[in-house]
């Protein structure tokens, strides 16, 4: 028998308070398993129809659910990422293409564009596909967005869980904010580069390319390389700083 919304939200209340019992864990497990079919449809659809290979998390961990309930004024039944999967793509152009395909594949959807509205520096696009009355969150991240997110999570694990949500010490926060801005600059450069490449392809032959277009393409490509290097350098500094903070503990 399916759990009622009241049962689910009462369970959420207990998870928020802590002191979780065996029966709470069993109930949560039952609730999470109710997403398995929807998850299978979404992950299977991505594989078959888009020929992409997502990595999935059929159910959010108990730790992450309890933390989310404590952090946000949200009920368990409202959490949208109980089940989800992730796609890593090379750049923003590919990200846009895949988001468009997912929206077409799963017409009942909500798109959360964290490129337009980053969450504490986190950048990505999420498509929440609703199938069989259940939401399944599909995270689409570029390689740089993924690197930033992995680093932010690792720092949260090792130093302070608040880091992932804009908290933590000032130095780590400043570094993550700066690194996120570098990612944003990289994305803006990719857009300019793509526009220049499109303009160039529309002109037909190389001889028809204007000096301005060629310069735009060369400059864009240089920016893509240099901002990636800048981000890597910044992350190395962050790691040294993180190691220093860990030693202080």
């Amino acid at each position, binding site marked *: 028998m399916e759990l009622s919304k009241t049962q689910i939200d009462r369970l959420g209340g207990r998870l928020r308070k802590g002191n979780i019992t065996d029966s709470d864990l069993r109930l949560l497990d039952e609730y999470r398993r109710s997403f398995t079919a929807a998850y299978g449809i979404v992950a299977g659809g991505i594989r078959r129809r888009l020929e992409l290979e997502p990595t999935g998390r*059929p*159910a959010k961990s108990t730790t992450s659910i309890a933390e989310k309930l404590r952090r946000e004024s949200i009920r368990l039944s409202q959490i949208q990422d109980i089940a989800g999967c992730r796609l890593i793509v090379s750049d923003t152009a590919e990200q846009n293409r895949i988001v468009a395909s997912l929206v077409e594949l799963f017409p009942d959807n909500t798109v959360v564009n964290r490129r337009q509205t980053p969450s504490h520096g986190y950048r990505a696009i999420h498509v929440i596909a609703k199938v069989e009355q259940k939401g399944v969150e599909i995270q689409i991240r570029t390689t740089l967005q993924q690197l930033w997110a*992995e680093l932010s*999570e690792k720092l949260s694990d090792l130093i302070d869980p608040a880091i992932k949500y804009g908290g933590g010490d000032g130095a780590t926060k400043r570094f993550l904010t700066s690194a996120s801005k570098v990612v944003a600059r990289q994305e803006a450069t990719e857009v300019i580069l793509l526009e220049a490449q499109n303009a160039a392809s529309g002109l037909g032959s190389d001889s028809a390319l204007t000096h301005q277009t060629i310069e735009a393409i060369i400059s864009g490509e240089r920016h893509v390389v240099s901002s990636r290097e800048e981000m890597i350098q910044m992350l190395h500094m962050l790691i040294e700083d993180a190691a220093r903070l860990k030693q202080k503990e």
Partner: protein
Amino acid sequence: MLFLIEYDRSRGEIVTFRGFGGEESRSAEQARLEMELDLNRRGVEREVVLLEAENEEALRRTHRRYFEDLAQLVS
């Protein structure tokens, strides 16, 4: 394939790692529940997560945080 991971967040390290075939999803879910019950009874705080990937290599690519330390993440 499915992968059951027991992860110690404060140390940033995997404690146990177990793989299941794609057709063993019920066994994997049951193993996750039993692990959570055991850790909860012993009062041990760990993140227990069940992930699905084409293979372990793909999982290591998309969930590097579980497998790598800070320096490895940006290498």
